[in-house]
Structures are given as structure tokens and as C-alpha cells.
């Protein structure tokens, strides 16, 4: 097991390094530079001073070496667009905001989705099933930003129940959370419904039923445990996405999350921020994949066994 874990860790570092390298050369290959966000021409001297200050007058490989060196010292650098803001600071400030929203949305999404899926499966072809499937189709078809605009207009502008946009109190998170989780509710409900249907037709369920097991225990111990595996698979990218935040939702509700930072950074060619955030996302993604693998083992003993066999 230790050997396996070490191997996994080594692969993670290697993946990270490859992603960093590719991203670095790609963003320096696209035309434009950080000064273009100014939207105007500047005298040559002023530009030269700016390039010199941030080492942009050096060749790209030189910049790459410099970047790696700083990175080894844990220095992500300073934003080119927002002087004085360290990239690490930006992540530290804005990631928790995206994370809170994402966690709220994903928790509600997963729980509600799973419950709806189970209900739909057990009431197959009856009205609860149709209702859940209707919600699911709506959730898949209706883009989150349309829902967001709708919620905003009805609940904030017309009825003034919630603030239109902004960040600060719990009230501010209600509308964006609903807009964000609607899609996952739909996804999880659909996955859960089909895998529960699969499971309840299995022989062991019949056996359990004939043993006279209570309904709750049947669902909890036998059905969910077996049906939830596909749902966990789609959870991995979503965990990483939690911190990433949704750019569109953040923009509509004026939420100072990380998503809008990344989009702005790309638009402004803010190289240091792009790199910093890429590393952050990449690391998160890799780690969440690892977490999911571990989760599989917890939920499904078969996975554990096969790993040990592989060793």
C-alpha cells in the first residue's frame, strides 16, 4: 500500500510539472501582453520600464527558468495587473469564497439529487418518478446563468427577498447556491435513479428482502452502498470545481470568487496569476482524484481487494 501511495504521489508531481510547463509556454505564445489591458498605446520608454521590472524583456526560456526557481522557493510572484497583490494572497482571499459557495451547492446538490434519484427509482413510472425526471431534464437543459437571471429578477428585483448581488452575509449566498446546485441535483438524480434501478433488480436485494430486513436498512445498507459508486465518479471533478467557482454565476451575482480572477487574468495576460491559479487548480484536481480513489475503497471493499492483489 505504501509503495502504491508513493507511486501515486510521484505521478502527481510529474503531472503537475508537465501542466506547468505546457501552460507557461502556451500563455507566452498567445499574442498580446499584460500592458494591453490598458487599452491604449504607451510611449516606448514607459513600456520598456514595465517589461524590465517584471523580467518580460527576457527570452521565454529564461523567464521559465526564473519562474521555476521562484516556485521552488514557494514564491508564486505578484500580479502584473494588480500591483502589490501576491498570487498566493489572491488564492488565499478568493478561494474560500468560491469554496463556501461550491460546498453549499455541492452538498445540497448531492443530497437532494441522491434522495430524488432513490425516490424516483422506487416509485418507478409513477408520478414522483415523472416529477423527478422532469426536474432532472430541466436541470440539464436550463443553463445555470438563465436560472440565475430568473432567480435574481423574481426574488430580488420583484419581491426584494434577497440582495441582488454582492457578498458578505449568508443571505447573499442563497440565490447563487440555488443556481449552482440545480444542475448537480439533476445529474445526481439521474445517475442515482438508474443505478438504484440496476441494484434493486439484483438477487441479493431479493435475498435481503426475504430475510425480512427493514426498508430503511435495505436502502441504507444494500441499495445506496452499491448504487452510489457511479455518483462518486462524477464527484471528483466537482470537488476540484468547488474552489474553482463558476465564472458565470460569480459574475452575475458579483461574487469575489476565484473563477472571475482566472478569467480576468487570462484576458489581461496576467501571466503570474494565470500560472499560480493553474497550479492551484491542477493540484486540487489531482488530489481530488486521489481522494475519490480512496473513497471507492471505503464504499466498495472489492476495490480495496483488487488493489492489494495488484501489489
Amino acid at each position, binding site marked *: 500500500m505504501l509503495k502504491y501511495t508513493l507511486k501515486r504521489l510521484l505521478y502527481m508531481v510529474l503531472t503537475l510539472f508537465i501542466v506547468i510547463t505546457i501552460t507557461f509556454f502556451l500563455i507566452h505564445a498567445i499574442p498580446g501582453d499584460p500592458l494591453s489591458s490598458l487599452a491604449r498605446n504607451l510611449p516606448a520608454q514607459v513600456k520598456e520600464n514595465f517589461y524590465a521590472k517584471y523580467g518580460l524583456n527576457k527570452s521565454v526560456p529564461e523567464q521559465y527558468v526564473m519562474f521555476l526557481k521562484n516556485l521552488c522557493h514557494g514564491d508564486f510572484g505578484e500580479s502584473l495587473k*494588480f500591483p502589490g497583490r501576491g498570487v498566493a494572497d489572491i488564492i488565499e482571499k478568493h478561494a474560500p469564497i468560491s469554496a463556501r459557495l461550491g460546498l453549499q451547492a455541492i452538498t445540497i446538490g448531492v443530497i437532494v439529487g441522491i434522495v430524488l434519484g432513490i425516490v424516483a427509482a422506487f416509485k418507478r413510472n409513477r408520478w414522483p418518478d415523472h416529477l423527478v425526471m422532469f426536474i432532472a431534464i430541466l436541470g440539464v437543459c436550463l443553463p445555470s446563468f438563465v436560472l440565475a437571471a430568473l432567480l*435574481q429578477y423574481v426574488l430580488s428585483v420583484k419581491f426584494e427577498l434577497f440582495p441582488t*448581488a454582492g457578498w458578505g452575509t449568508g443571505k447573499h449566498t442563497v440565490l447563487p447556491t440555488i443556481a449552482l446546485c440545480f444542475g448537480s441535483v439533476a445529474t445526481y438524480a439521474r445517475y442515482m435513479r438508474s443505478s438504484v434501478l440496476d441494484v434493486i433488480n439484483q438477487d441479493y436485494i431479493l435475498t435481503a428482502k426475504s430475510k425480512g430486513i427493514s426498508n430503511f436498512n435495505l436502502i441504507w445498507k444494500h441499495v445506496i452502498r452499491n448504487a452510489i459508486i457511479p455518483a462518486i465518479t462524477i464527484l471528483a471533478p466537482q470537488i476540484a470545481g468547488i474552489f474553482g467557482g463558476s465564472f458565470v454565476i460569480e459574475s452575475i451575482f458579483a461574487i469575489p470568487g476565484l473563477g472571475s480572477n482566472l478569467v480576468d487574468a487570462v484576458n489581461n495576460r496576467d501571466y503570474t496569476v494565470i500560472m499560480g491559479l493553474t497550479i492551484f487548480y491542477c493540484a486540487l484536481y489531482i488530489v481530488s482524484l486521489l481522494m475519490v480513489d480512496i473513497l471507492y475503497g471505503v464504499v466498495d471493499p472489492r476495490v480495496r481487494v483488487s488493489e492489494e492483489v495488484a501489489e
Partner: protein
Amino acid sequence: MKKRKVLAIIMAITLLAVALMGCGGEKPKEPAEEQGEAEGNEEQNETEGDEAAQDAEIDDEQYVTLRMPVEPQAIDPSKSSDLYSSDILNEITEGLVRLERDEDGGDVIVPAGAEDWEASDDELVWTFNLRDYEWEDGEPVTAHDFEYGIKRTIDPEVASQYAFLLYPIKNAEACNAGEKELDELGVKALDEKTLEVTLEGPCAYFEKLLAFKTMYPQREDLVEQWGDKAGSEAEYTISCGPFKLDNWTHKSELILVKNDNYWDVDKVKLDKIVYKIVEDPNTAYNMLSNGELDICGVSKPEWLEKFKQRDDMTYASEFEPSVAYQFFNQEVELFSNANVRKAFTLAVDKEELVEVLYYGIGEPADGWIPPVMKVGDTTFRDAVDEPLKKLAEENPDPKELLIKGLKELGMDPDPSKVTVTMLEAGTDAENRRFAEYYQQAYETALGINVEAEYVDWPVFLDRVQDMDYELAGMGWAGDYDDPMTFMDMWITGSEMSNTGWSNEEFDELIKKAQESLDDEERLDYFKRAEEILLYEDAVISPTIYRKSSRFQYGYVKDTMKPLFGSGIEFKYGYTQGRN
């Protein structure tokens, strides 16, 4: 049983419909007379009226909330280069002067940190006498603070992007290039309260640069203590102006509160200004309509219409020092001919363009210097006719001009065989709307084929700088209140424009205008230069003089937006009658 259910559903629906209608129809029930009053109120600058009565009536809670569409870079006069940082800096800093707006919409320079100033006879040495005033922490504002501020901006290591606005100061350009020591810069604190600035050469518009952030005082002790962090958070800023920065939640909001240590604090009525950073325009409009914002710029037609119907709001649309224009790459054979360029210039119906593309926000531009800009104290556009009007009168048919140009070039005179690619900055639906309009305008008027190529803004700038385009459009906003800010970018080798155009007479005129201190003479130079640029050589084709467009609730009073200020000036603002 069933019948009752149906009845209940119908009743519920009816109730819901009534409720919804009630919400929608609430606004316009006020009598029409109030609307008339609201319209008469368009300009919010009236300061007359009984002061005492005003004081008695103004709201107990004095605050305004407005939209800021983008996060400011840094509240640091040397390091920031965006309008939004300048906006905040203007409210928290008292420089030598402040800009205010007069009744005609032009700018007036009002003494602020400097009580008065004088220039030597050759106008090369300027001496400013500072008033006694303090920073928010009680330290006096001294001439050394101004000297330090200017030197910091020029310091090449700070890499200030607006350092070039200080180039009129002696040795500034050399110091910015690192060729001379900062000690040789022509700025000196003679004593605590006297600042002397020496210029490199004559500069007729030097006074108009005083209000800009590059001339602000800065605290050496604090800036050094803060290091790189200066201006990046509320705690790394210091105020000597009407307000101070109390709280800054990045990408969310900035809160300014009244600075009780401000020397002119009696005139400041607002206790709090909240800038909400809202990028999505629809969200901002929603916030304006339910009162979460008091002031908001509005540019989408459906919302303009909606807000104009509301009688509790006033609309303000003022000229900005900004012009949108089309420009031609003269290294492309077709555009090397002046008649061809003229044909393209005349092909666009600007009246229609303002309506269709800009929803009426702006004025058709037949000149390059926008209205309300001044030479000395004379408004340039009042004294000089727009050159493109003459061009249009003399050439009623642009297609004829094009054919003439094609013949001169020795090309096939059939316009339908000409294909031009227009480079458009931006790739969204709005850019498509713009490019398609121009495409259709050129094709209809000239009978040519126009293709549009859409690229990202940074790519666009790169392509233009590399002269890798045929025809493109962008905007220019002036930096200070003198035609020079619109003119010196076109001289040979300026690096600020990329058309491949060069004209000796034009260069000569601009040089003369730079050296002259005589307003009338300079006006004539600029007049002739503009004529060459537009009428004779048709280097660029201005399309509109841009205007701002914003709504604010009627209870927000006495705000103003100076032409070369960076945003709305709240020093005198207050609210009266907010619910």
C-alpha cells in the same frame, strides 16, 4: 369535488396574476408634472438655492452607493493606470488643484492643496504655495510629499505607466529612461510649504496636468514601510482628501468614509460612499432599479428606455474627452491613396451610426478634437469648424472618390473587385454588431466587399502595432484638457499610432504648438493640423464623440463629473429625500 378543485386553481392563478401585475405597474402611477421636473433636473450641478433650507432638509443618513464595473488596480498614484483607481484616488487625495465642471460642461481648475501659484515670465519655473492641511493621521502635507510623489512616478524601477504625463518636467524623460539621476529632476521643495517645478521647455498645458494623479503628494515614510504592498489594500492607503478608504473587499466593494481631518471638511456632506464592484451590467441595472444602487452608468437600449420612464430618476449624459475612429493601414496599397481613404471616411452615415450602434449615446464626429475641450480658455470646437463637414459637402458621392483613387493607383476601377478586411477588437456579439454595421455601410456606399476578422483585444493591439491589418476601428481618450493629447500621437515616429502616415507640415505644426505659449497661435496650429489629418490626408475617420450615460435617483444632489476627472466628484454631493 372536481369542480371545486378547478375553481380553486383558477382563483389561485387569478390572484397570482393580480399580484404580479401589481408589482409591474407600481412605478408609473405618479402624475406627469413630476416627470417634467425630473427632466429639467438633468444637470445636477446647481449649487444655488437656499443653503440653510438645504441643510435643514438633507437626509440624516448621508451615503451613496454606485457601481464600479471593474476592480481597481491599486490605490497608488504611481502604480495604477486605470480609471477606477484614479476615481478613488481623486476622492481621497487633495493634490495641488481639483477639477470642477462649469455650466458649459468644460473643466475649471480650482486651487486645492495649493493656495496659489505663479510662473516665471518664460513659464519655465512654477512655484506653488501650499495651504496648511494634513494627512488623515495628522501629519502635515508638505512640499516634500509632492516632490517625493513626482519622483516616485518617474523612477524607472517603479515602472509607472503614466510617467509620460510628467515628461514636460525638466529631465523627466531622461530620468525615466534611467539616463539621469532622480536628483536632477526639475522638482524641488524649497521649504515645507513651497514647491518649485522647472520645465524642460515651454508647455502651454502644464497647468492642466496639475489635477492628474501623477502630481499627487505621497508619504515617503509610509510608502517605504509598505513596500510592494502600497495601495493594494485599504490599510496601505492614506488620505488627505475629502474621503478616506475605510474598507476594500477585493472584487466586491470599496467603502469610503468622510475624512474628518480634511481642511475643507465643512463642505463635505456625505458620510459614506460605497462602490459596488459589479461586472455584469444586467445585474447592475437590476440593482439600480430596486434601489440597491443610487447611481449607475447605463448603455443598453432596453434599460435606457425603462429607466427614462421612471420619474424618480434623472438621466445625465455628458461629453467625454474621447472619440471613436476608424483607421487605415497606409502600407496596404489600396489605403496608400488619400482619395480612397476619403471615400471610406465619407461612406459612413454617422447620424445613423450614433443611433444604431450607440443607441444615441454620443454625437456624430466630423472632427478629431471633441467638443468642450479647450485651448487655454477657448473651447476649441467653438472656434474651429469640423473639417469633415467641408469634405462631405465637396464630395457628395464617396463612390466617385473611390473610383478616382483606384484609377490613381492604377488598379481596376471597378469597386466590386475590391475586397477589404476589417479587423475588429473583440469576439462577442456586441463586436459582431459593430463590425457588421461597418461592413454593410461600406458595402452599400462604395460597392466593395468587406470581410470582418474578429480577434481578442490583446491580439488586436499586437496586430495593429505590427501593421498587420488593413482597416480597423478603436477609440482614443485624451489625458489632459488640451488638443495636444489628441494630436501629438500622429507625428512621425510617435509609436502611439500605427497607420504608416507621415507628414512634414503636420510634424512642424505640432512642434510649433508644443513650443508656443500663445493660445491664439496654438489654436491656429491645431486647426491647420486637424485639417491636414482629416480633410487633406484622411488619415483616420472619426465616427463619434463619446458621451457618458448614467442614471441616478433624484435624491442624489450636487454631484459632478469633470471632463478630465476620473469619475464622479462627490466632494459637494449629498442626498435629500431618500426614503
